[in-house]
């Protein structure tokens, strides 16, 4: 196993400042609207976050003043569009501690980013005699691509098990990674909020010669990310969960790996030369960006990164952790054992997501009742069906937080839940 490469200088620890949420809320136009005559209380950011005005304006401004295709025209606005697109890439690179923008591949979303690795690196490097390791708590996006690969290549797929306390049983890891070529693990469970110790897992995986892919869709929007400190070889995340637009996601990969990988989607943009007998590929990252990319979305993502960076990701994490602690406490205090919360019990050990059930009321009905109070929560299996089977529930309700949520939002949720008693009690 080669070394991780040149480690960048560790970034200075960010100061933690309290977020002024009443002011932040004004940055998000959608939070001004009402539903069913009630203030919108949006608690589904783990599914998709809302967007601040600066993101919307950046995209509008781009379309109003600058739009042209990138990497093609020699005229002024095409140059400007290309510069904006590449500037967004550089912003993302700095945001996650990448060595350079060439390590940032824009994809459609985190799902496509993981598929890109499965289809290119995976199908080149994994076969019937190798193995992959993932966990029982993964989102389908970090499970189905590996199941598909197993089906095609006969590569064994092994699982880190869930423990009753909502954490992963790490004791089996050395055995699981023995002979494995890949560890694919979430940095934060979208259902349980579990935060696997990615660095520790990565070190064990690397020692066994495996590469490490981190599904960072639920971590990059909520906590400081430094890919070198994480010990990852690939990470995947989506813009729409981090205050940015839909339609764009990111694959970060170590440059040497990206360069050695075959292309994924093919066509325009990703080529250096094409003849009737074949083609050669462009440099990374463009090698993986076939066709006209999501330019305005990249601009929006760049604006979202600026917005989050101005708040400070350490401050974002501290805010959401405090809010999670408050919500866990309020739900327990109000409903006691009638509310069951899945995942690690302490806010320090989880991301800002709270999956819960209330008495034996189905999650759909909970979500419907909360909707009437203007509260948006997710109900269902959260694209993690194997995990739901382990939990023994067909569906849960899930509240999740972002920078624009405060204790008042939690209070509305807690109060509105009591309406379920009137209907289903």
């Amino acid at each position: 196993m080669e070394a991780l490469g040149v480690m960048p200088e560790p970034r200075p620890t960010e100061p933690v400042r309290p977020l002024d949420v009443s002011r932040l809320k004004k940055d998000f136009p959608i939070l001004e609207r009402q539903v069913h005559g009630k203030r919108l209380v949006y608690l589904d950011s783990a599914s998709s976050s809302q967007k601040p005005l600066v993101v919307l304006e950046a995209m509008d401004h781009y379309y109003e003043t600058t739009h042209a295709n990138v990497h093609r025209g020699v005229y002024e606005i095409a140059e400007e569009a290309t510069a904006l697109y590449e500037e967004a890439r550089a912003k993302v690179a700095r945001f996650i501690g990448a060595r350079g923008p060439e390590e940032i591949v824009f994809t459609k979303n985190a799902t496509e980013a993981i598929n890109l690795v499965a289809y290119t690196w995976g199908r080149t490097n994994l076969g019937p005699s190798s193995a992959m390791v993932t966990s029982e708590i993964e989102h389908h996006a970090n499970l189905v691509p590996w199941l598909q690969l197993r089906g095609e290549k006969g590569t064994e797929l092994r699982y880190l098990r869930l423990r009753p306390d909502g954490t992963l049983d790490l004791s089996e890891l050395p055995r699981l990674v023995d002979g494995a070529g890949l560890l694919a693990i979430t940095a934060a469970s979208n259902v349980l909020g579990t935060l696997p110790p990615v660095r520790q897992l990565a070190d064990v995986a690397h020692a066994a010669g495996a590469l490490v892919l981190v599904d960072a869709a639920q971590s990059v929007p909520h906590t400081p990310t430094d890919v070198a400190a994480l010990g990852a070889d690939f990470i995947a995340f989506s813009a729409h969960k981090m205050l940015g637009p839909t339609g764009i996601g990111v694959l970060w990969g170590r440059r040497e790996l990206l360069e050695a990988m075959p292309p994924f989607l093919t066509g325009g943009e990703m080529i250096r030369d094409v003849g009737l007998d074949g083609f050669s590929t462009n440099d990374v990252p463009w090698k993986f960006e076939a066709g006209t990319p999501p330019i305005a979305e990249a601009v929006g993502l760049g604006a979202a990164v600026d917005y989050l960076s101005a708040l400070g990701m350490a401050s974002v994490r501290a805010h959401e952790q405090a809010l999670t602690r408050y919500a866990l406490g309020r739900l327990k205090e109000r409903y006691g054992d009638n509310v069951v919360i899945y995942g690690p019990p302490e806010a320090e050990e989880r991301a800002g997501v709270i999956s819960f059930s209330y008495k034996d009321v189905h999650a759909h009905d909970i979500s419907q009742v909360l909707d009437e109070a203007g509260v948006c929560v997710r109900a269902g299996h959260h694209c993690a069906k194997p995990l739901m089977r382990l939990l023994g529930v067909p569906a849960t309700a899930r509240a999740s937080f972002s920078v624009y949520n405060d204790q008042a939002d939690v209070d509305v949720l807690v109060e509105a839940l009591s309406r379920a008693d009137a209907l289903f009690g």
Partner: protein
Amino acid sequence: MPGLEDLYREIILDHYRNPRNRGELPSPPALRAEGFNPLCGDEVVVSLELEGDVISDLKVSGQGCSISQSSASMMSTAVRGKTVAQARGTIKAFRAMMSLHGQQLDGRPEGTGAGPWANEVPAGTALGDQPGTAEALAGDGGADERSAAEVAADEGVELGELEALQGVVKFPVRIKCATLPWHTLAQALDEAEKDKA
């Protein structure tokens, strides 16, 4: 804006709290079909016995939200003891009731258009429904622009308390919850006819 009382009618909640014909019949001889909503994990199992053309016994089991489970319970009381033809007629009428109304699709505000029984959209176009469900429910695969009342009259069946579920249409994402048991019943009846053939 529809309120919760449009969705959670008292009779629906009663069927949810006290489900009728709950359980499974030994299969065989009973015919059994399973319906599954992959989006929310709702499950309905229908088992039924035929004596000639009559559904002599029928039970439903499964798990899910109040709408899917109450719809299953109400369905069981509606078709148990009825002929296969009557059951299929009720499925058709229920399917018509669960399709979205023209007034919601063409953007006119609610209440300004025709009543909730008019302007049914053709089968298969109900928003939020599973692809093919409406068509499968219709049984004949054809478009049907008749209202639920017209379908019921033409089929010689009565919707009765099933009409309480019409409020579900105002909550499009829940339509598939209500139609899941009916889809499953249609499958079980299809199996029965295959057995005969």
